[in-house]
């Protein structure tokens, strides 16, 4: 394994700590012991590789991928797009990006969601795509609605889309959530507040991108994702015993 295949150490300050009492479910699911820090091995710098032929033609179009013949989901159509970059600002091509969300009424198509809001018969709420050669991803969906959840008695989630991202190595694996510029629930959200650094929270908010919208048809939001960068080692200690 080449030293330059290793990833730079994760900056814990960029992330929520495991134990965040404001988000109560974390209290009994957070490890109490410190994570054991490991230098990368082959197990960490490698990761699954996906091909375009594994995806369906409508996988990145949530407006159509669960719609009945002639039907369409209710809600404000939007395009969400951006790039997947590494910490060195290099685009990461060919990586799998997956996304899931509630419908326009704030209801998930999930057997455990019993929020009193309608299921949309034309909306599944999930999709996926691969980044292109410049690291770009894009999909079409409808604006997800806010919904209440059990944390404090009157906690509401701002509209958000969940993202799952693979990098080139399994150590880059990331799941997160994207919010929408201007949503007044953002400042009340307990789950976003688990991220201690306000500047880091800002990086989870997508911006309205009129230039990427489709005039007379669809608005667009832009959100870039950054995964850990790879080391650029100019000199490496000579290892003993080789």
């Amino acid at each position, binding site marked *: 394994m080449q030293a330059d295949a290793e990833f730079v150490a994760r900056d814990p300050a960029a*992330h929520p700590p495991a134990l965040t009492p404001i988000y109560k479910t974390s209290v009994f699911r*957070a490890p109490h012991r410190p*994570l054991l820090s490991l230098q990368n091995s082959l197990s960490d710098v490698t990761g699954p590789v996906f091909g375009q032929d594994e995806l*369906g033609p409508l996988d990145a179009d949530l407006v159509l991928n669960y719609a009945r013949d002639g039907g369409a989901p209710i809600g404000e159509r939007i395009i969400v797009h951006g790039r997947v970059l590494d910490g060195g600002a290099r685009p990461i091509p060919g990586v799998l990006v997956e996304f899931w969300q509630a419908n326009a009424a704030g209801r998930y198509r*999930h057997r*455990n*969601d019993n929020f009193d809001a309608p299921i949309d018969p034309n909306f599944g709420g999930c999709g996926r795509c691969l980044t292109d050669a410049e690291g770009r991803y894009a999909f079409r969906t409808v604006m997800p609605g806010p919904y209440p959840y059990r944390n404090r008695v009157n906690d509401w989630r701002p509209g958000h889309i*969940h993202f799952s991202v693979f990098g080139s190595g399994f150590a880059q694996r990331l*799941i997160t959530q994207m919010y929408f510029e201007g949503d007044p629930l953002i400042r009340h959200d307990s789950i976003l507040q688990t*991220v201690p650094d306000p500047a880091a929270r800002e990086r989870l908010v997508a911006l309205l991108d009129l230039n990427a919208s489709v005039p007379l048809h669809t608005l667009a939001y832009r959100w870039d994702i950054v995964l850990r960068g790879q080391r650029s080692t100019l000199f490496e200690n000579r290892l003993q015993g080789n």
Partner: protein
Amino acid sequence: MIPRDPLGYLPETPSQTAGPYVHIGLIPRQAGFDIFDNNLGETLVTPATQGTRIRVEGRIFDGTGALVRDALVEVWQANAAGRYAHPADHQARKAEDPSFRGWGRTGTDFATGIWAFETIKPGPVAGRAGHRAMAPHLNLWIVARGINLGLATRLYFGDEEAANAADPVLNVIEQPDRRKTLIARPEARDGHIAYVFDIRLQGDGETVFFDI
């Protein structure tokens, strides 16, 4: 759009919990609907895959001892020869297996809390330069409601005592008792071997999780 630091680096996007409905996006059939023709990660092994068939299974417990029944578990592993299906694996004399990607995912069962993979036993993998080989292992990654940043751990095999004793990662764990949290227990099942691996998120017997 994302401010760079003074050296020009970009900060990593913050993690957020996968939430209670992670199944919709990643294993939609468990959420209760069928949307994709190809459910990625559902099957690891085909009849053409080389290697010894095994089952690995376990449960996940929270700090009160209750089952975590809404978690997602991913596995990343080498093939039977100990090679990863990835261009960064340059190990000599280890054949690729075109019928094995080595990645899968599943959910803990909403009722029983059990997760399981039907896979093959991986071979040993070269360690870091200057270190001994790593014993056969599965890399596991766990996300769920209440987990703010995915938890990485490793499953080692209880019937690989000699290889485990020499493993450079297990040996980084200072307390011998904590090493045991990464060893799966073999059990005979209908002519196959099942390895049982329970994960404890917090408290007594807490599983060793890695910052990689």
